[in-house]
């Protein structure tokens, strides 16, 4: 924001919002053209609140009460292709029902913003938090940000538009918030004035593409017709996938510009990777989402007891910030990877596999152990995190990791 030519920080208002309300409030301030969503626990509050904003005339948004998540994403694709700012929200099985369109949104380069209230995938049916839904979509070509608290949810829900629409990115984005732990927990959230949010998001920019009638913006426009989503066979599909590779690589470079701009406006600075007490750490944990707050608390306790513990919060999962993680980790000899997800039949859970891959070619690398926690909403308690650190310390002292995978908090060995 500028006043008298001077760059100033926006004046903020403290509100009591749960994670879902933070998404809805931020989205109200952005005032997108189209919201197409179907309510599903624990995302429901987002849709409820937003439909109230629509009913009360607080937004200009066309709210489409679709009959399923498949339609929610299809509608978002259509709206975004027509040049609209399109928002949707879902969780777990809703995301699963969207599946085919999720991939289409990213391959058509449509900057849709979606809030994902992370919830365990059925079955058996469970409405509580883990990361099986978001992790399942890790190869879909979407950007994924995992939030730690309601403040981050609010901030990311505004930043998301600028990230998705950045001319070098042009990809859909998931703002991930842990179901119930964040979605239904009220916290203090600093909010910006509507005007500051509007200034920040501005108007949606478009990239120029070459259509069959010449050059034009990548949007459906009767004056400049384009073919979007054509049959794309052996001779072109592969090349188009390279565009997605490039876009996610570029995203890794450009998201930080938006983080910086947001910091100037709000005073809240985010990084892809946020280390805590890592300078002299001998054992470290890395994790995503709400559990990192608990991990930080345990690090403080362990430090006061003399253990050189550190931790890393991973905020950006897609694109995967390999170099940022390595820099944050430094020379820590042992790393534990905390995950609310199982990749059945795989050697380890997704984040562990990616970290292993990231480090495989390096001569100097930490020993790594994978800890699965919190499936189906099971509490990730300080004791469980302590258990992980104790195990890591043992590995550090013996020089080896006894078990690649440990399922913490499950009954039975």
């Amino acid at each position, binding site marked *: 924001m500028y006043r008298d030519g001077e760059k100033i920080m926006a004046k903020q208002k403290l509100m009591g919002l749960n994670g879902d309300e933070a998404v809805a409030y931020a989205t109200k301030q952005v005032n997108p053209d189209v919201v197409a969503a179907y309510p599903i626990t624990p995302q429901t509050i987002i849709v409820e609140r937003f439909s109230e904003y629509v009913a009360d005339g607080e937004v200009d948004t066309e709210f489409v009460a679709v009959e399923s998540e498949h339609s929610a994403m299809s509608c978002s694709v259509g709206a975004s292709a027509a040049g609209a700012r399109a928002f949707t929200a879902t969780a777990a099985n809703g995301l699963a029902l969207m599946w085919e369109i999720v991939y289409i949104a990213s*391959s058509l*380069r449509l900057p849709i913003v979606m809030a994902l209230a992370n919830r365990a995938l059925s079955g058996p049916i469970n409405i509580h938090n883990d990361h099986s839904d978001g992790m399942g979509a890790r190869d879909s070509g979407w950007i994924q940000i995992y939030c730690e608290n309601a403040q981050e949810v609010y901030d990311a829900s505004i930043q998301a538009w600028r990230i998705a629409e950045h001319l070098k990115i042009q990809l859909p984005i998931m703002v991930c918030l842990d179901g119930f732990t964040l979605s239904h927990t009220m916290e203090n959230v600093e909010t910006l004035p509507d005007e500051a949010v509007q200034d920040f998001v501005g108007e949606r920019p478009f990239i120029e593409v070459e*259509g*069959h009638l010449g050059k034009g913006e*990548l949007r459906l426009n009767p004056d400049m017709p384009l073919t*979007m989503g*054509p049959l794309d066979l052996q001779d072109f599909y592969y090349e188009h996938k390279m*565009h997605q590779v490039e876009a996610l690589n570029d995203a890794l470079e450009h998201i930080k510009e938006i983080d910086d701009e947001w910091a100037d406006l709000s005073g809240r600075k985010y990084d892809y990777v946020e280390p805590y007490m890592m300078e002299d750490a001998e054992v470290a944990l890395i994790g995503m989402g709400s559990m990192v707050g608990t991990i930080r608390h345990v690090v403080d306790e362990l430090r006061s007891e003399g253990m050189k513990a550190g931790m890393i919060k991973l905020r950006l999962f897609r694109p995967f910030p390999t170099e940022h993680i390595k820099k944050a980790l430094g020379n820590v000899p042992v790393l534990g990877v905390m995950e609310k997800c199982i990749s059945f039949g795989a050697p380890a859970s997704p984040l562990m596999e990616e970290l292993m891959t990231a480090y495989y070619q390096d001569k100097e690398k930490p020993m790594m152990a994978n800890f699965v926690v919190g499936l189906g909403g099971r509490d990730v308690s300080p004791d469980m995190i302590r258990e992980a650190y104790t195990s890591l310390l043992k590995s550090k002292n013996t020089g080896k990791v006894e078990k690649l995978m440990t399922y913490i908090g499950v009954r039975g060995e």
Partner: protein
Amino acid sequence: MSKRAWQDLPKGAVSYKSSMDYKTGDWGVDAPKIDHSKCTKCMLCHFYCPEGAIHVRDDGYTEADLEYCKGCGICAKECPVKCIEMVRK
């Protein structure tokens, strides 16, 4: 003509050519042969053709555009006077 590298293709998998430039006539093995001596100019083949590859000429007779005809044979099947025969290209 060599095909473009991925860096030179429009983003979003937008097609930079018209579908008119996509000659699908080589997909099929058969092509319709229309016997105008039996044809009643009903134009059903023109309407039924899923590819829009059968045109109506100024004289009212129909003609298949083999650059686009995929040889599906629907025209021959639907022709009420059976004046269309599918033949090997």
